[in-house]
């Protein structure tokens, strides 16, 4: 391991200013909770220095948790076990339906059960490197450190992980890493982990420490005297606007990938909880960092409402290709001779081939389709798909061998597309899958607003500019089970705070703003559905703020989004009333927030004139077309402060300084 100051890089000095005129520069941002000392001792020391809360006082302290996925569900259960009085909110009809449930692949942990050279330090190193050196060292180290506790906890809860014949846990290697540290439950790891957290949560409901509010959507954050003290939520079944007050508020409301309309997120995933907090002053960090997953089932037509991911493991055996000639694109792929096929990943990246990282595989798929060599149905002016061909693998391993490995995925593909992938090559295309950006938090997961904590995908997280496979589940559960419950108590030790009720002016104002906004949405009575605006926004974002971003494109996108926003507020059509279940109204509120977020994402992407992780700027690439980072200018977290509806967002920079790991430019050639 390196000594402390060997690698210390310099604070970044940004020269380029592409987003000039779109934002206001703000004061530098410093994480005041950032621990110091040897990296391996930081979390231990932090836990020790945190204040304790007397068990007898805990039940008098109220915590609101929005979201019941891995982070929110685990946090609610754990704080409930500790004896706090927890209110847990989710928009679904049950906490068990949060979208963490859809994660397939697995969860990383530095158990080193395979004795193959894994360690906390290696997981830490891989995660920082995978994030293209845009994450905080201390946070990532902590994540790697608690990863082992997660597995223990989940096994004790009865999570049925895959096991070997001897009865011990099985591991696989995932996402191109060279150690086997991924724990899994067939292709349903997220489901099994979430059910574990859900059961722990329901146990606390029975114990009386947690109250669940299902079919409830947070529509506003309540700030009183500079502290987050509650939320305004709408009961989606009755339409009632409710005020919930507490000593601290935790947002674990997931990511905002649905800003692209089409993504692998659930239909209900939205940015509203975090965006309302942002409008109340919470900084939004690195909003442009989006992860695009290369192996999704392509769009089949304009009606498409969502995209389905297929496990990345398919790339281990499938070969990716497109026809060399555009005129072959509508032929039956089996009739295209070998010499007319372009196995472009194997051609460009001979050493990694089809196993290059997600962002590279995605971008190259877009490139060949942009060249007019995509396959599958025409969607708009292009065919958006590339072949993932298993015929070589079937010849090598036999149909049985492929069946044993991928049967459920092949079935899923056939169910959705109606094509049999044992006979015809699969078609795949990249899709938005995860966002690394989110609300800015300090080491304690507290946002810049006192008393507002953010966990899981909702925070700007530990993944930097890109996330490794099987690390989302790890981060969600790390935050929920082990980090947040330890850090929030340092804050709660100063509670209970001054009692407030619904009549407090700040509370009443928050409630009124929600009611006014709903009334406004219902009163426009224009001609277009919220869904149609969402689709249009998605097209803009995907085209200009998707896999490849450029200065002119982003400027154009910002203009288009501003026009879209103006049109939305003058021509939206929402039927029904506010005082009943009204899915169109729910959707309209979410789309309104997505539009505002979309603009900020473009500004953030415009400002960051470098390519890092999931963010690729056309202006910043090597001669060979590879991503080029600019550590001298951009080794910082871009934390955006809301500048008012008429104003500009304010950019606060938090410098990223590396002491334990040296920053390197990655290469997969």
């Amino acid at each position: 391991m390196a000594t402390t100051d060997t690698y210390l890089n310099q604070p970044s000095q940004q020269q380029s200013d592409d987003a000039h005129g779109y934002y206001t520069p703000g004061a530098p941002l410093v994480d005041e909770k950032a621990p110091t000392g040897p990296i391996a001792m930081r979390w231990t020391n932090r836990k020790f220095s945190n204040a304790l809360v007397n068990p007898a006082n805990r039940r008098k302290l109220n915590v609101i948790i929005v979201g019941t996925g891995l982070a929110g569900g685990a946090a609610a259960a754990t704080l409930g076990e500790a004896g706090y009085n927890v209110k847990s909110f989710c928009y679904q009809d049950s906490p068990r339906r949060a979208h963490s449930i859809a994660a397939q692949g697995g969860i990383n942990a530095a158990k080193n059960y395979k004795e193959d050279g894994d360690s906390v330090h290696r997981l830490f190193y891989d995660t920082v490197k995978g994030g293209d050196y845009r994450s905080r060292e201390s946070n990532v180290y902590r994540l790697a450190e608690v990863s082992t506790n997660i597995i223990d906890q989940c096994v004790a809860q009865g999570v049925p992980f895959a096991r070997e014949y001897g009865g011990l846990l099985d591991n696989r290697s995932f996402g191109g890493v060279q150690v086997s540290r991924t724990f899994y439950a067939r292709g349903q790891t997220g489901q099994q982990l979430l059910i574990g957290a859900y059961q722990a949560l329901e146990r606390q409901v029975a114990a009386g420490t947690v109250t669940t509010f299902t079919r409830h959507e947070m529509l506003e954050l309540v700030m009183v005297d500079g502290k987050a003290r509650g939320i305004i939520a709408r009961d989606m079944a009755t339409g009632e606007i409710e005020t919930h007050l507490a000593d601290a508020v935790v947002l674990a409301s997931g990511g905002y990938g649905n800003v692209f309309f089409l993504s692998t997120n659930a239909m209900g995933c939205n940015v509203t909880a975090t965006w309302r907090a942002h409008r109340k002053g919470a900084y939004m960090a690195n909003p442009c960092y989006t992860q695009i997953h290369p192996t999704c089932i392509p769009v089949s037509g304009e009606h498409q409402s969502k995209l389905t991911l297929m496990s990345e493991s398919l790339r281990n055996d499938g070969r990716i290709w497109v026809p060399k000639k555009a005129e072959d694109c509508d032929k039956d792929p089996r009739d295209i001779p070998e010499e007319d096929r372009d196995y472009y990943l194997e051609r460009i990246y001979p050493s990694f081939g089809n196993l290059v990282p997600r962002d590279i595989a995605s971008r190259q798929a877009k490139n060949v389709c942009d060249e007019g060599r995509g396959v599958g149905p025409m969607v708009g002016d292009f065919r958006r798909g590339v072949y993932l061909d298993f015929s070589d693998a079937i010849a090598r391993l036999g149909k049985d061998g492929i069946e044993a490995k991928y049967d459920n995925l092949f079935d899923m593909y056939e169910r959705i597309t109606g094509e049999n992938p044992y006979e015809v090559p699969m078609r795949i295309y990249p899709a938005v899958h995860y966002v690394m950006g989110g609300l800015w938090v300090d080491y304690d997961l507290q946002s810049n607003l006192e008393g507002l904590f953010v966990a899981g995908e909702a925070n700007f997280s530990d993944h930097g500019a890109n996330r490794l496979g099987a690390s989302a589940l790890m981060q969600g559960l790390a935050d929920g089970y082990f980090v947040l419950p330890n850090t929030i108590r340092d804050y709660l030790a100063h509670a209970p705070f001054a009692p407030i009720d619904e009549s407090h002016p700040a509370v009443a104002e928050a409630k009124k703003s929600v009611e006014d906004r709903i009334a406004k949405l219902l009163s426009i009575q224009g001609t277009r559905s919220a869904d149609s605006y969402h689709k249009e926004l998605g097209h803009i974002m995907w085209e200009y703020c998707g896999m490849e971003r450029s200065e002119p494109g982003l400027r154009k996108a910002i203009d288009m989004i501003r026009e879209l926003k103006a049109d939305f507020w003058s021509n939206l059509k929402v039927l029904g009333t506010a005082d009943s279940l009204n899915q169109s109204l729910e959707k309209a509120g979410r789309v309104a927030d997505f539009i505002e977020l979309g603009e900020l994402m473009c500004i953030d992407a415009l400002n960051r004139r470098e390519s890092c992780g999931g963010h690729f700027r056309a202006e910043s690439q090597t001669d060979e077309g590879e991503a080029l980072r600019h550590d001298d200018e951009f080794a910082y977290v871009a934390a955006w402060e809301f500048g008012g509806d008429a104003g500009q967002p304010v950019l606060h920079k938090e410098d990223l300084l590396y002491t334990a790991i040296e920053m390197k430019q990655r290469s997969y050639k």
Partner: protein
Amino acid sequence: MNLTLNIWRQANPTAAGAMHQYHVQDISEDMSFLEMLDVLNEQLNEQGEDPVAFDHDCREGICGSCDLMIDGQAHGPEVTTTCQLHMRSFKDGQEITIEPWRASAFPVIKDLIVDRSAFDRIIQAGGYVSVNTGAAPDAHATPVPQADALKAFNVATCIGCGACVAACPNGSASLFMGAKITHLGRLPQGQPERDERVVNMVAQHDHEGFGGCTNIGECTAACPKEIPLDVISQLNRDLRTAIRNGH
């Protein structure tokens, strides 16, 4: 393809509902069933008619939100969730009847949306292992025979959609309950609370107003995750053991 849809419309939990007929045109066979309903709703919105409310979320067959009774079959004619059902399973010109799950324990909230919180309360009654965060021993402390882990996993795939209840002529939730009891009962971690779990969950199930099981087997055919009927046998055996043990 063009289709005629008969859909249950009910404004709120107390309103009287009725079937309404709608027509949709130019439906692609690559659409999912829910995307076909999206088309209908966009059409209704244009006509100024309240769109049809239905539950859905992940649209990839895992969250368990979607819950439509399609032509008398829970989740429609294929063994899958409604969201993974595609229009190629239907014929041009077909008339399709869409109803909500029918069970007194699943009251209708609006149109095709029902309240399934009874399932959460059954889990609250004992569908968990009591282990506080941080109190767990090392994951390798207790090996679990692979066969048990596999069996536990196979039944732990339940998504809590409620199709078993919807399809059961008795309106019983035994398959749902049996899946959880079998999942935890197969693992060493689930043993200490095994007796209590089954007794409390069954009591809550009955209290919620679900019917009794007469082993007809419709539940397992409707289950999108193909949970087998033997989980109900396991449930019964565990209950018998618990009663013998004085619970």
